[in-house]
């Protein structure tokens, strides 16, 4: 299915965060974005890929997983509508994917070209500030989830003793 630029901006405008930013910034991001329809089971990227997009889920659910030898893929997080994933692509020092992404149901995502987004942020620090602020929120909430998972809050004391 082909989408044009108008579709992309229309989808982006639905997202609360984009409602808060200036028209020109929305336009700038929209220009470097594309819509992608994904089918259940479709892999968006794999660990180690240098594929360079920041994604926003519009519909459906995308799971992030890490492959552990002898244990298989462990799902560590799922992204729901308006969740952002693939944020490491925007951070200039990380050159490859730290987890894989797979659509678990049919859905729609927006892919933002990360290289172009980095350029846009460098060129316009106002936009850069907004994007980085948004990303820091995402990273902070991801970190909280990771901490709660790390605590293993459902563990019983017996489990701890066993370790």
């Amino acid at each position, binding site marked *: 299915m082909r989408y044009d630029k108008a579709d992309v901006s229309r989808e982006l405008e639905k997202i609360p965060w984009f409602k808060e930013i200036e028209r020109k910034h929305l336009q700038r991001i929209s220009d470097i974005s594309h819509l992608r329809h994904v089918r*259940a089971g479709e892999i968006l990227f794999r660990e180690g890929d240098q594929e360079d997009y920041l994604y926003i889920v519009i519909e459906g*659910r995308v*799971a*992030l*997983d890490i492959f552990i030898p002898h244990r*298989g*893929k*462990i*799902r*560590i*997080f*799922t992204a*729901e509508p308006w969740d952002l994933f693939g944020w490491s692509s925007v951070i200039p020092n990380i050159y490859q994917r730290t987890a894989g992404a797979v659509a*678990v*149901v049919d859905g729609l995502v927006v892919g933002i070209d990360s290289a172009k987004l980095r350029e846009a942020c460098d060129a316009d620090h106002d936009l850069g500030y907004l994007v980085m602020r948004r990303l820091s929120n995402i990273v902070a*909430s991801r970190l*909280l*989830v990771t901490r*709660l*998972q790390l*605590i*293993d*809050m*459902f*563990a*019983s*004391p*017996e489990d701890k003793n066993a370790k």
Partner: protein
Amino acid sequence: MTMLATEIVRTHADLLLEPHWAEIKSIIPEAADIATYWIRFVDSDEQEAFRFEPGQFNMLYLPGFGESAISISSDPQDHEKIGHTVRFVGNVTRAVSRLKVGDIVSLRGPFGSHWPMKEMEGKDVFIACGGIGLPPLRPALYHIIQNRDKYGKVTLLYGARTSGDLMFPKEYEDWRKAGIDVEVTVDRGDANWNGRVGVVPMWFYQFRIDPHKTTILTCGPEIMIRFVIFEAMARRVPLDRIYVSLERNMKCGQGSCGHCQLGPYFICKEGPVFRFDELQSFFNVEEF
């Protein structure tokens, strides 16, 4: 002074911790180390007279081993049998795990406070729970389903460690059909799990909560409860509309033995269900 002349109110049997015998009718395994015991009092009058409110618990006694507080997980309208969902973690509950259908235990109860079923009428209900925090909320869900038109939007957000640890998964579809939005998340998924992965407090943002007309019920690990309350407060839900069910070392069920105290409260008597504004000043004190 001698009290011969003093009238003393007596409301309990002369036998302290008197056992009331009950028979295990069926045992339903729920997850690793967790099972639901369907129990019926041996004395049919006693069974007929037994009534409880959603959120209350019974003291389950195994002669020779001791007593353990177990929340009641069945339908309050089911007067035939009483469901107790037990996690095998202590001496008593491990002994319970060896019992079979037809074995006899003792039940004392019901004890404690209950979920605010009446106060929530006409309001939205948001239930955030984790792990073995769902069983004490199941009677509340049954009550809501039976009185569905009395409540507004009802959401159950439930999390467990893995998909295998989810309680009562076969019922979710029934609950959804009855008009409850059931949302499930796990801490860790595998390649076959297509549901949510994450933790309960985090998923709050996915739901629109009207802070003026929503009551929040939460039960689960205390760390989860803490973050659920942070989220609820961030959404401006007033503290007197957040209800928490706590677990402590309940022994007597009558606010007498002292073990389950949290500040001025005997959790077995004033709890286990608390309105959070009454709990706030003690809840976050470390090791209190």
